[in-house]
């Protein structure tokens, strides 16, 4: 009786083939996925970068403003914060109170980035200092109230087209494609953050910039012959 040569045994071939599933362990080690025994909380509680990032989960399509209502809200936002040069500089609304203590403070973002409320020891720009809404010394650090920013995507542009933002201040971006599907990607130097917008669906993301820069906003979903004309800018200082 003969035995199969080493390397041609079925168990080895099957084991090697399913070995590709071992990548999951590498993902978990890189904090991209939860360990099976950790449950889902371990994955989501650290200010995750992408897993919960694009949108959703807070009600369905009908719970937010309609495209027409969103256009009106955006126009109101632009009129309120427009500067003489035509750019838009949103700020905190009068009477905004500090938010409740942030349960995530101390964890940092899943990507290893600081949140706005935690000074970034690696930034080197003094950029991550929390804005003035921080709580008094000696008390529990609080998270500043995010400033609301409206961004409407349409064929073929963004409104507002140029936003002036501050380093270290959290912004709650409220975005909607008001005609057909669009993207609202942010080019941030070494890489981009891609955001997909479906028509009439409100997408909210809280963003805190940790470095100043002139960042491109562009569409990443084909939206017709003027697709490449869709561009805006974020001037972060």
């Amino acid at each position, binding site marked *: 009786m003969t035995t199969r040569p080493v390397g041609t045994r079925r168990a080895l071939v099957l084991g090697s083939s399913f070995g*590709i599933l071992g990548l999951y362990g590498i993902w978990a080690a890189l904090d991209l996925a939860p360990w099976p025994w950790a449950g889902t909380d371990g994955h989501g509680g650290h200010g995750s970068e*992408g897993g919960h990032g694009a949108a959703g989960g807070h009600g369905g399509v*009908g719970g937010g403003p309609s495209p027409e209502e969103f256009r009106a809200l955006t126009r109101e936002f632009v009129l309120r914060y427009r500067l003489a040069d035509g750019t838009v500089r949103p700020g905190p609304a009068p009477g905004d109170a500090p938010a409740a203590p942030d349960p995530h403070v101390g964890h940092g973002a899943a990507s290893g980035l600081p949140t706005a409320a935690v000074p970034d020891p690696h930034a080197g720009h003094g950029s991550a200092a929390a804005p003035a809404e921080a709580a008094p010394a000696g008390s529990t650090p609080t998270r500043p109230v995010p400033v609301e920013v409206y961004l409407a995507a349409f064929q073929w542009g963004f409104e507002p087209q140029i936003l002036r933002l501050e380093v270290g201040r959290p912004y709650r971006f409220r975005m909607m494609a008001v005609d057909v599907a669009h993207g609202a*990607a942010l080019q*941030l130097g070494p*890489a981009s953050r891609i955001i997909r917008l479906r028509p009439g669906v409100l997408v909210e993301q809280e963003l805190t910039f940790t470095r100043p820069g002139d960042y491109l906003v562009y569409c990443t979903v084909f939206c017709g012959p003027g697709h490449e004309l869709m561009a805006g800018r974020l001037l972060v200082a």
Partner: protein
Amino acid sequence: MAASLPLRDRLAALPVGDRRLLEAMVGLALVALGPGLVMGALFAMLRAGWLEAPLGTGYTWLTLHGVGVFFFWLYLAQGALLLALAATAEGADGIAHRRLAAAGLGIVALGLGLAWAAPLAGPALLYDASPALAAEDRRAAGLAYAGYLVQAAGLALIAGAALASVPRAKRAQGGVWSTVAFGTAAWAGLLIVSVVAAVATFLPAALWTLDMAPLPTEHTTRWHLLFHNLHYLPLLGTVLVWYVLVAELTGIRSALGERFSKLVFTSYLLLVPPTSLYHMFLEPGLAPGVRLLGSLLSLLIGVPTVAVFLIIVVSIETELRARGARGPLGWLRALPWHEPTLHAMAAAVVNLALGGTLAFVLIQERLAPLLSDTFTVPAYFHFLTVGTVSLTALAALAHLLPGLRGRGVPAPRLRAALPWLLTLGLLMFGLAGLAAGLTGMPRRVAAVAYGGAAPAAWTDLSAVIALGAVVMSAALLAYALLVVLALLGVGGAAARPAVVEVAEAGWSAAALQPAWSGPVAVAVLILAMAGATWLAVHLMAALPVSATAAGGS
């Protein structure tokens, strides 16, 4: 592993009508491929700034490219190879219901005409033809949907004829499926899955253009399912063709037995269709649990392809070592490299490894906000659809032609070199595309300067991408031209394949040779995937922004 007579001889023994039908199918596949390749290269040159065109023209070119290459070339090439294998499986006696298959071919040709006319009749919609973009002019969209639906009907007839052919082979074998007949049936089944996905995607949209249904809001989701099938399901056909051609070129049987091969082919049916969730990671409103499940399921895509790779590599290595090959790579040198088809298969394996490595970064749901909708996507899938599937299909068609026409494909040395030239072009296209995609350069865009606000590297990298596109398109076109010449009867005498003596099933003491190259290659591949993932995570961490979801509706 394969029937006793060489495939070319079995093709030559087919009825004349069967052979003419297969030739016609090869010819129509090349009609779809040629212009499709040219349009893709033109679009790449436009993006690089080498050409100028009115606003929107580039998207017409990109639509013609996608329709021609991804829909019609890939399906027609699969149809021709599927029918050829079904008609020549051990015990088969030709194409069952040849008229059905011929009608299918005619219907697919009509579909090609309709789908190609669409972007010329109205605004370009790209090959997913989103109805929302056609709200003001439904003519072009209507033509596109009609073309796709007609194609699906034709493809169903072709797959049906193949499915009807293999049971005859089984009966002739005493009720036992040969591995090739079994794999062919599974492949035909997957084509039927594609047909169903196409109908589910485009029928509601077609009814909308006729005012018989509301605007299909689920078109994008259905398109993702179809697109997933479109570019992963041909992998089963590809590995089945490798399986057949290895036996044809080397005479080596599977070292793991026919039942094991059938199990692996079946696993494609079970594992690939449910793994499409990762295309939707960026969709607003997708629940976190679904994202995680999508990531987990996506890993399964690689399992059957790695298994087939291992079956083929360990079988070849073991047998050639038993025949005297020495040294770590001596078995590779012992392969019949004078056969041009072998060069195409080897290049296809290299491209599969490259494309697979990049694909496994993209299926990680938390990297989706970094990479989805960027040029990383075409960078990886061209390695699979062009460098693996299309190259294998073209080489296989060239290999089959002497059996159909009685004459060989000309210029065997050129045919041996072209796959490597294609791979060189793909490397330029893919690596430059990967670099551009990692910095966020979008796919499907005709210009990347954004008035000077985009990174300057996007323009430079677009030039390398265009050069790569030109090189790979030229290589594939040259290969296709050689096949056309053979179809037209221009070529040398039919050359007999240099088949080595067929190994006996089972294992003798002399064949007890270790075969570690396959498992080692897989381990290296997994490490490369892990490294690429780490690199992407590192990039994500370097972004000057922190982000959390704030909800939405």
